[in-house]
Structure formats: structure tokens, C-alpha cells
């Protein structure tokens, strides 16, 4: 048998999807930092997380990732897209780039992605749930209703989430996300 006929195959790269996800993670990361300063619910969620808490959300095996940590004043801080060697208190990883693309292109909501075993969570699941709640609220601000509806189980009613709060905060979060 001529074994050279069956060469070794090194994995290629999916550049476009990687870039898309990296951009999405950057926006979401910046938006969480911004929203934590604007929205009281998110502020409260972060206040209840332990001190020096940080987490990563990203794609296995090599990223991109998004790192968020809690700063000295108990607020969320976007810490970039590179993960250090040390493991964080909470790491939410999506198993592969395609699954991540499904999540970040809103074809699969977070909970559905969990149910379809696309995620691997290292760390306390209670923290992960807090982060999922934060992400849901951030999506509510960042995206129009028609898309957010795909990503959450139940879209908030007016009575639960006043339009004033929604639109005013949305503008503030957008400004803070995209200005430095």
C-alpha cells in the first residue's frame, strides 16, 4: 500500500465565521460593561457575584473568547478576547465554531443551545445562570424585538419592562459600547 496516497490532514480555518463571532463577542462584551453602568437589574446581578469574579464566554478549542471581570466597584469590565493560562471562576465554552455561529446568529437561543449540549460550563452553574440573565437583558437592549424574540423564551411585556427604560437605556448603552 502506498501510504502517501492518504496524507495527514491538518484542520483548516473558517476565517469569516471566526471574525463574525469575534466581532459579536467584542460588542456583547463592551455592551455588558456599558449596561452594567446603566441598567439596574444587571448592576444588581453583578453586585451579587463574588468579589474578584471573572468569566469567559467563547469557542473551543482556541477561541475567540470574551473575558469579563468584576472591578473594584463591583461593576462589569470587559477584559479583552484573549484567555490567559489560568482558569477563571466561570468558563462558558461553546463546543465548536459552527455551534457558536448558530448561537451568535440567533438561530439557537441560549437555552436551546444548552439543551442541545452545545455548551460546556466549567464552574458554578449558579453564576452561569446569572450571566445568562445578563446576556438576555443585554440582547434586549442591543437588538430589535424581532430578533430578540428568537433568542429568549419569553419577550418582556410592557408592564414588566417599561418602554422608557428600554429606549433610553438602549441609547445610553449604544453610546457607551462604541465610544471609548
Amino acid at each position: 500500500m502506498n501510504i502517501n496516497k492518504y496524507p495527514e490532514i491538518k484542520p483548516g480555518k473558517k476565517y469569516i465565521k471566526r471574525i463574525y463571532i469575534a466581532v459579536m463577542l467584542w460588542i456583547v462584551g463592551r455592551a455588558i460593561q456599558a449596561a452594567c453602568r446603566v441598567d439596574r437589574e444587571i448592576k444588581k446581578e453583578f453586585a451579587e457575584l463574588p468579589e474578584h469574579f471573572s468569566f469567559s464566554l467563547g469557542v473551543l478549542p482556541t477561541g475567540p473568547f470574551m473575558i469579563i471581570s468584576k472591578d473594584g466597584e463591583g461593576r462589569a469590565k470587559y477584559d479583552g478576547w484573549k484567555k490567559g493560562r489560568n482558569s477563571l471562576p466561570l468558563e462558558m465554552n461553546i463546543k465548536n465554531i459552527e455551534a457558536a455561529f448558530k448561537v451568535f446568529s440567533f438561530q439557537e437561543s441560549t437555552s436551546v443551545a444548552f439543551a442541545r449540549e452545545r455548551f460546556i460550563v466549567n464552574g458554578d452553574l449558579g453564576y452561569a445562570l446569572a450571566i445568562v440573565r445578563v446576556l438576555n437583558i443585554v440582547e434586549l437592549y442591543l437588538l430589535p424585538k424581532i430578533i430578540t424574540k428568537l433568542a429568549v423564551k419569553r419577550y418582556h411585556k410592557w408592564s414588566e419592562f417599561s418602554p422608557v427604560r428600554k429606549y433610553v437605556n438602549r441609547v445610553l448603552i449604544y453610546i457607551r459600547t462604541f465610544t471609548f
Partner: protein
Amino acid sequence: MILPRYSEFCGRVKTLSGASALEAIPGELKKLNASKALIITDRGVVAAGLIKIVKAAITGKGSRLTIGAVFDDTPPDSDYKVVNAVAKVYKEKKCDAIIAVGGGSVLDTAKGVNILVSLGGDNLLDYEGAGAVKQRLKPLVAVPTTAGTGSEMTLVAVIADHDRHVKMTFVSYFLLPDIAVLDPRMTKTLPAAITAFTGMDAMTHAVEAYFCLGKNPLSDTTAFKAIQLISNNIMNAVKNPGDMESRLAMANAAALAGIAFSNSMVGLVHNLGHATGAVCHVPHGVCMSIYLPYGLEYNLHKVGDLIGEILYPLAGAEVFAKTPKKQRPLATIEYIRGMNEKLKKATGGRHATALKDIVDREGKQMVPRDAIPVIAKNAMGDGAKIYNPEEQSYEDNIMVIEAAWEGVPLDLKKIKKGPKKQKF
């Protein structure tokens, strides 16, 4: 049958079932090249005389299996120090397999011990963190002594570090026991009330597995079988504890439900049940049976059709055919409430149907009304809520827990409903 867009299923446990299933252990261990077993169990199991039965069965005629040691001091909350100590015994006695006889904490401890003795080392903390277990471990046999938790079919081990006040979770398919032994002699002596609530615990696993987000074809069929077996046998097992056929059926049901829920995951009932257990120290199964009808009511608008289908394994073909399709979901809920009522009667009121009625051994109420907000808050941090079809906010939790506390049905109109039917 629904084929979801994507799903995973794994039921990698060899199941031995029958009135003399224990006797099959030596042969199976021989196939796995093991001949000296360490038995891990707890005081309650020993006091019930079950270890005697196990020992006799596995060292009987024709068996080459020897027992290296018996560790019978597993605490109800498995601790890593205990794990380290037991692993030392295993090594000293040169054992090559583990037999865990008991409930959840015994099995968790056994899984922890297995990690240590298979991967080497003398401290379980060295293996903390996900993904540490990546190879086959030593043969592990699970012999459940309650027909309910289904933990003999799960790939998780939760082991506490009491110094740091953390619970370490180890997840790996290699933590699945190699063999689960379902033998009615192990559950024969369970008191009526425990039989009732552990049975309903298994029922909850199966019912939730059938409509929660991770459902898949095989979790569906295992769940259906489990519901059918429980519905047909639970009353008999409670009323005639010595009926081996019913006991075996219940043990099978619990294992099937274990397979179903560990592959499909569970929702609101488990979410609130875990929280209630954590806050008020109520036994897991008791909470489950109380919350079950509420979990169904809460998700009715999203998965009503699926809930309606459950009527068949619960009540049988005749009732199912007679009930018009539209009424089936509510009939299912009604039927489960009816079962709880019957079990309450059969156990002299010990099988509580409302949270306010749960009492401890001294007759003291275990879930005071003012615990409701604490439970609701605690539930927000429990993973099961992800897999529930409908969203659960803190306010939703309060509403459900209050109804369950009083023991009155949910007001269906008050449930905040998401937009559409659930797609899988």
C-alpha cells in the same frame, strides 16, 4: 415521535435486572477482569440488613469474587476527605473493583474513589475542574437501594469540600457505573412513605424528561416506559411492600427514568424542588411529588400536546381513547394529583400534597410560609431552569411556590406566557 434538530443520548450502563440479579455480579466482574471488590455503603443500608444479602449473593456458589473490604461509613453529604480515606483502603487491600450499595451519596463517593484509584494520587482535589477524567476507570457496580433517584444512570459526581464550603462537580462519561444491578431484595424493606415519594421522584424525572428542552427519541421511550411501570406498580409497592414483582418494576422504572432525565434534562419541578430541598432540608422526592402537577400546569401552553400524550402511560389505553384530545393535558394533571392523593391516603397522610403539610419526625412544619421568597431566590441559581420550556422569573417562582404551599392548582390565566409553541 419528535426528532429534535440536534440531540445527544448516551445510556452506557449495563443493566442487570431480576429477582436474583445480584448473583450475576461476579460473572460480570470477571468479564471486566476484576476479582476483588471494595463495597462502599452507609450505616442505614447495613442496618437494613442489605449488605448481608449482597455479600451472600456475590460470594455464593461458583463465585471467584472476594470482598476486599466493606466501607460503611459514607456520610449523607459525600466529602472528599472520606473519598481519600476510602481510596487508601482500596489500595491497601489491593481491590480491583468497587461495588456501591446505597443511594446518591454512596454512589457519588464511590465515583470519587474510582477517580483516585484509577488515575492515581491520594487527593481528589488534584482532579478538580472539568475534563480531568479522560480514560476508563476501574469497574464500578451500582446497586441502588431506593427506587427513585436513578443516580445509577448518571455521569455526574458531586463531592463536597466542607473546608472551602464548595461542592465539586465531576462530569465524565467514564463516571457512569459499568453495571447497574436492579434487584428487588434491595428495596423490599423500604417503608411505605419512602416508597411513595421515591417512586414519585422517578415519575417526576420521567414526566419532565418528556417535555423539557433536551428531549430526544430515546429519552422519550425510556420516559414512557418508566411512567407506565410506576403508574401500574406504585400503589401495590406501597400497600404490599413484600411484592417482589412490583418492587422490581419500580426499580426498573427508576433506572429508566434515570436514563431519560440524564439525557433530556429536567425543568421547573426539579428547579423548585432542589431549591426547596436546599433551603428547608426537605427530602428530594417529597418536593418532587408536590411540585410535579405545578410544573405541568406552568408549561401547559407551550407543551400541552406532549403533556396530553403522557395520559396514555399514566392511565392506560382505555382512558386515553375515551378522553377527547383537548382534554388530555388537563386529565394528565388531574391524574397525577389523584395519584398523590391516593398515596397520601395509603401512607396515613405521610405523603404530603402541599408544602405546608410537610412535617419532620417531631411533627414540626418543615417549610414555613416565610421561606417562600428564599426558595424562589435560591431557585434562580439552579441549573434546571434552563431546560424548562417557559421562562421562570423570580415572580413566577413565588407564584408557583405559593400555590404549592397551599396545595391549590395554579391559576392558568395568571401564568405569563411566551409567544409560541415549543419547537425541539
